[in-house]
């Protein structure tokens, strides 16, 4: 087929040795490579260009193999990756300037015309392929952008869901957290919600800190998960929400309750499931839980109140000994609040001098004469009026304010007693000393200074301490008592006979006297009769024994709470030295004591009557 002479006629073929085509291919491939980078090896490039060159040569020398061959060549160039304008430019340049020359054929009009036609077609095919190519690319990149958008939005939605879950759930246990609980409660208290009564059960593991300390927080975490799982399993349609509030605090929100009992039932069940033993790594960890329950309406802000009420009730459960549940009760809460307000008002009241002393007479039972007075703290509260010690002393003990209050009263009492010496020499004053005061070093020094300042002889100051205060004699207490005795101050045990007195202490302490508790003063309604006892002991037996115990130890015995003449006689008969109580006189302001002393001296100037004298008191 290649037997015809070269460079002649319409069917010219390239030089038989093909060297001309080879040079043309190299030139074209180089032009393309320079114009446009396609990541193929030189060899691959050469192979592609050889294929294209063959078709070009055939088309120019023999006429187009078929319609559209030039276009196809252009399109194939693009398909091979050489789709840039530079690639087309380079191709046209090489084809026009080198093709015929490299083939060694004359540029006769036929060939030139064929070549021109071919170039026109090739350019058309090339550009339309390149155009299609870039339109396809535009489509894909647009679709990619669209997909990226959708994906980003979806990811955002997922992350929002996760974020919301993260914000509203506890990570350790997977339970809802306080945020979600508060949110739900809040939703319940908005007007649109149909629910009007709701219950809250707050739960707290008792002494959980100890578990963490002793067993490590990993064990603690395992326990918390187990607790969460048990509480979570309790939840059914009625329990709207079991939440972990923080560390070892959980809560159950109960919707649509009718009464507190509904929630108490659930709290009971919660305590029951948590009462089953916990095992961690094969060891049993004993745990108890306290619960506080509150139930009520949630309309307008009630939800927040309810939650607080649950927490308060939980606090009570803890204070009442743990491992139990308490139902919120408004009266108890009011009383708590009242005590809190009093306690908070005390420091300022002390600074403003609202605390004063009232004095109650102590009478020598045999002579009927006034032997001394007991100073009792009173609070002239600007709104509540005069408050007795029972209302505030315990609070002052708890806050520690009792120390400052005690010294203020001590000073007042000593100053007052010192004044009374002028009209009744030897009248003593008895002042209560709290456990806290006694545990402070420096009490003896302070007492000495007060005695100095007020001029009261030390033996006329009686300090009353409770049995409780001396039950456990630590170094400070013993030293203080010894120092006080050294000063000459007299120490009296108060409320004797009801506490757990350590009788051995009665011997070892430098005591002056005993003050019998009021319960010994009044005989019990029914004498105790114990089956099997040889002889039932009567109240009088008991009283007599205690009095003689005091006397045998060389102590002065005073009876408190004497309200009737009959009681006074009985205690006198039992051998009590002194008596105190409404029968002899109520706690009164100092002027009334003064008036009493004056009246007594007046009476003593005339012969005494048969009755035991009584200090007149004003009933208030």
């Amino acid at each position, binding site marked *: 087929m290649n037997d015809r002479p070269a460079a002649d006629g319409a069917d010219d073929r390239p030089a038989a040795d093909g060297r001309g085509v080879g040079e043309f291919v190299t030139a074209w491939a180089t032009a393309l490579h320079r114009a446009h*980078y396609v990541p193929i090896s*030189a060899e691959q490039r050469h192979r592609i260009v050889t294929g294209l060159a063959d078709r070009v040569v055939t088309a120019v020398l023999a006429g187009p193999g078929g319609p559209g061959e030039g276009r196809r060549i252009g399109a194939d160039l693009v398909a091979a990756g050489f789709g840039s304008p530079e690639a087309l430019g380079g191709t046209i340049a090489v084809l026009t300037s080198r093709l015929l020359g490299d083939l060694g054929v004359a540029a006769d009009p036929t060939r030139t015309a064929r070549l021109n036609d071919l170039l026109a077609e090739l350019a058309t095919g090339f550009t339309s392929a390149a155009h299609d190519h870039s339109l396809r*690319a*535009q489509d*894909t*990149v647009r679709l*990619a952008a669209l997909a990226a958008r959708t*994906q*980003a939005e979806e990811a*955002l939605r997922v992350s929002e869901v996760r974020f919301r879950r993260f914000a509203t759930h506890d990570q350790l246990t997977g339970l809802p957290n306080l945020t979600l609980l508060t949110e739900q409660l809040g939703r319940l208290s908005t007007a649109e919600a149909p629910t009007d009564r709701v219950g809250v059960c707050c739960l707290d593991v008792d002494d959980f800190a100890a578990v963490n300390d002793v067993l490590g927080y990993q064990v603690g975490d395992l326990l918390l998960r187990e607790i969460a799982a048990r509480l979570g399993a309790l939840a059914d349609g009625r329990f709207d929400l079991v939440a972990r509030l923080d560390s070892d605090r959980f809560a159950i929100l109960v919707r649509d309750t009718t009464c507190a009992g509904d929630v108490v039932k659930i709290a009971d069940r919660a305590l029951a499931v948590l009462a089953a033993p916990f095992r961690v790594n094969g060891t049993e960890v004993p745990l108890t839980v306290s619960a506080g329950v509150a139930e009520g309406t949630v309309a307008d802000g009630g939800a927040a109140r309810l939650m607080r009420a649950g927490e308060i009730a939980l606090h009570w459960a803890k204070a009442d000994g743990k491992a139990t549940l308490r139902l919120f009760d408004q009266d108890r809460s009011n009383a708590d609040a009242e005590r809190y307000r009093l306690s908070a008002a005390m420091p300022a009241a002390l600074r403003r001098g609202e605390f004063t002393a009232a004095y109650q007479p102590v009478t020598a039972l045999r002579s009927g004469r006034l032997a001394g007075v007991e100073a009792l703290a009173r609070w002239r509260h600007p709104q509540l009026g005069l408050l007795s010690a029972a209302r505030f002393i315990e609070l002052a003990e708890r806050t520690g304010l009792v120390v400052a209050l005690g010294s203020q009263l001590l000073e007042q009492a000593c100053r007052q007693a010192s004044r009374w010496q002028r009209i009744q020499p030897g009248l003593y004053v008895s002042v209560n000393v709290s456990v806290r005061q006694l545990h402070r070093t420096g009490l003896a020094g302070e007492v000495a200074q007060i005695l100095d300042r007020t001029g009261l002889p030390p033996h006329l100051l009686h300090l009353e301490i409770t049995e409780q205060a001396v039950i456990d004699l630590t170094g400070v207490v013993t030293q203080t008592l010894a120092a006080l005795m050294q000063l000459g101050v007299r120490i009296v045990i108060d409320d004797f006979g009801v506490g757990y007195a350590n009788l051995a202490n009665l011997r070892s302490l430098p005591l002056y006297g005993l003050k019998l508790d009021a319960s010994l003063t009044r005989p019990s309604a029914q004498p105790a009769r114990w089956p099997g006892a040889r002889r039932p002991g009567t109240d009088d037996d008991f009283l007599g024994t205690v009095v003689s115990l005091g006397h045998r130890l060389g102590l002065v015995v005073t009876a408190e709470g004497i309200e009737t003449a009959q009681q006074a006689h009985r205690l006198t008969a039992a051998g009590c030295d002194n008596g105190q109580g409404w029968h002899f006189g109520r706690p009164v302001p100092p002027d009334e004591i003064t008036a009493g002393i004056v009246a007594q001296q007046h009476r003593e100037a005339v012969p005494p009557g048969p009755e035991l004298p009584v200090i007149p008191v004003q009933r208030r």
Partner: protein
Amino acid sequence: MERPEWAPADVDLSRPSVARAYDYWLGGSHNFEVDREFARQALAAVPDLRLVARANREFLHRAVRFMLDEGIRQFLDIGSGIPTVGNVHEIAQQVDPHSRVAYVDIDPVAVTHSTHILAGQPNAVALLEDLRHPEAILDHPEVRRLLDLDRPVGLLLVSVVHAVPDHDDPYGLIRRLWTALAPGSCVAISHVTTDSRPDEMGEGARLSGRTNTPVTARTRAQVEDFFTGLDLVEPGVVWSPLWRPESEADVGEHPERMSFYVGVGRRR
């Protein structure tokens, strides 16, 4: 509470993307007018920027072929960009059809486009991750599924390290990446510099501030430091056309004008 880290990146199509502008410089059409506008501004600053991009792309391919010759059959291509002709998996699978490639980029459009291209390709994936979080890449389940980190990996960091500013600790990041790879793994880095054309390339770097990934150009010594701890493969850190060229003719008269330092290091 702060928004957690896994909040996804936004897709902002009003900002030019380096991935798409690079596609344009290479003659591609996977780009938008904002990208082309930026790309043309950069071309005004650096008239032969197309050649610069091409020289970088050519280095990528030579580096991949080098690694294939080294017996490496799995690749981690970070900052892979918009797929254009001659993607790493095409080149690798020509040599071994079982070669595996994980592409990583922070450009969401580049990644969805790659995913589209890779549909039906079991041995290649494209992931939306950030070079600045190496562990997220290394621990990515798809990366773990595809790549066996106990065998050598070709780590490709081509034209991406300069997108990490100094305050993100690029040296530490890259070290964290390759220390997770098996001995025999190779790391290819190409990096923009203003050493040879301070004015033109400096302007180009400045313009990149408009894109989602601004550029920090570095000196030769700074680029060499990225290979500390690795065995630098011959000829070391050089101008992009000078790294193991296929022919003398490919180098051109002024390789330094290509403004990329490139190199390959091998993990001992």
